[in-house]
């Protein structure tokens, strides 16, 4: 798999950071301290975060700052979590969101 973490950058220093384990659709994955859920998934090569409830089309993140809602996922059973701004925590259970998500928050 392609490595997406930048290790050698002419201007910025990206220190290694602590490893944060989480799962994506049941698969174990690793993020780094400082990651949001979306950045950790991106580092693991995951591009599709969900499927739109109306168009059924795949969605990835778009704005990465919490503006556009393209990145909504199910996290620890709760749907519609904006993964691009939500910090990654150890042990998080992250799942692809289909439709409007699981009906737990009605």
């Amino acid at each position: 798999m392609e490595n997406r973490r930048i290790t050698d950058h002419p201007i910025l220093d990206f220190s290694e950071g602590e490893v944060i384990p989480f799962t994506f659709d049941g698969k174990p994955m690793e993020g780094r301290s400082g990651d949001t859920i979306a950045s950790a998934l991106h580092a693991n090569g995951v591009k599709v975060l969900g499927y739109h409830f109306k168009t059924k089309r795949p969605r990835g993140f778009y704005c990465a700052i919490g503006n556009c809602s393209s990145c909504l996922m199910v996290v620890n059973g709760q749907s519609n979590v904006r993964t691009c701004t939500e910090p990654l925590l150890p042990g998080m259970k992250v799942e692809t969101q289909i439709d409007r998500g699981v009906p737990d928050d009605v």
Partner: protein
Amino acid sequence: MMYETDLVVIGGGPAGLMAANTAAGAGASVLLLERDRHLGGQLIKQTHKFFGSEKQHASERGIDIAALLGDELKSLEDRVTVWTHATAVGLYDDGVITVDYDGTYRKVRPKRIVAATGASEKFLSFPNNDLPGIYGAGAVQTMMNVYGLRPGKRVLMIGAGNIGLIVSYQLLQAGVSVAAVVEGLPQIGGYAVHASKIRRAGVPILTSHTIVRADGKESVESAVIAEIGSDWKVVRGSEQTIPCDVICISVGLTPLTELLWQAGCEMRYIPALGGYVPARSDRLETTVPGIYVAGDAAGIEEASAAMVEGHLAGLEAALSLGCGGDGCEEERADCLKQLSSLRSGPTAEKIRAGLSCAHGCQTPKRRDEHA
């Protein structure tokens, strides 16, 4: 409980930081609200050196300027309160601001407000524009420069304004290849020096070109670009397919002014400034007394101008509260001089025209106006 303070600054980018620093320096109590978890706004993603003169920290990199302004803020700790992860969600005509502060509901009543909310990115319509792998330029920068991640392997950049050119350069620095920069206009919109930087690194800049569509099953695999004529229609037969896994949209910014609309400020549509902007006096007060505006929220410009505007807005807000002392007149004059010098060149012709439409409003007198 209502939080009371002299001044609320909404937005912690260069404009907001300067406004908070200046007003607090003049003796006002300040609450700074920032939606993000960090201060700095756009600056924390800018790894390149900035233009301007020494006064606006020219030749410093954006990230370093953010740190500088943040340090200054810390030195004023006793007068400035900072709430990060705090979004101003409502601005009512009685002057109350409602805030989502880390998930809790807060109400704030300040005597003055500086809106320095910056801008949001424009989007583009083309078939499959919602495929994963199509990102806004801001998102690409955030991924790269905040989280240290390459957005992909090969990027097609849409837009040759300064942002498109600079983000292309930053992509190359991160080890990502840039297939091409596509620009609809017949000439490059950004500064020539930025264009030359990426051109000599092998990135073609295709003016009078547009993206026709994106293709891919679950995410971007390629894009079709084509030449466009002066009528903005695609020249038949000029289509070409560009293999890429990322399409970066950088077609401009538009001022983020929702709160000013809500507050009832007179808004004017000025394309040269990026869309709707509040009418204001040359001292940056809007048509609602006590509400000032600074930075990209007042019209899309640059960090250098945003910092000076923030300085001026913070100063005016403090002065109107009776704060400040000797030297304020000179400080004001100096701000106005810096602004006019930054805006005096040919590349700022559009900005000047836009500003002449935005300025020149009459702010009604405040009830508590000092005689």
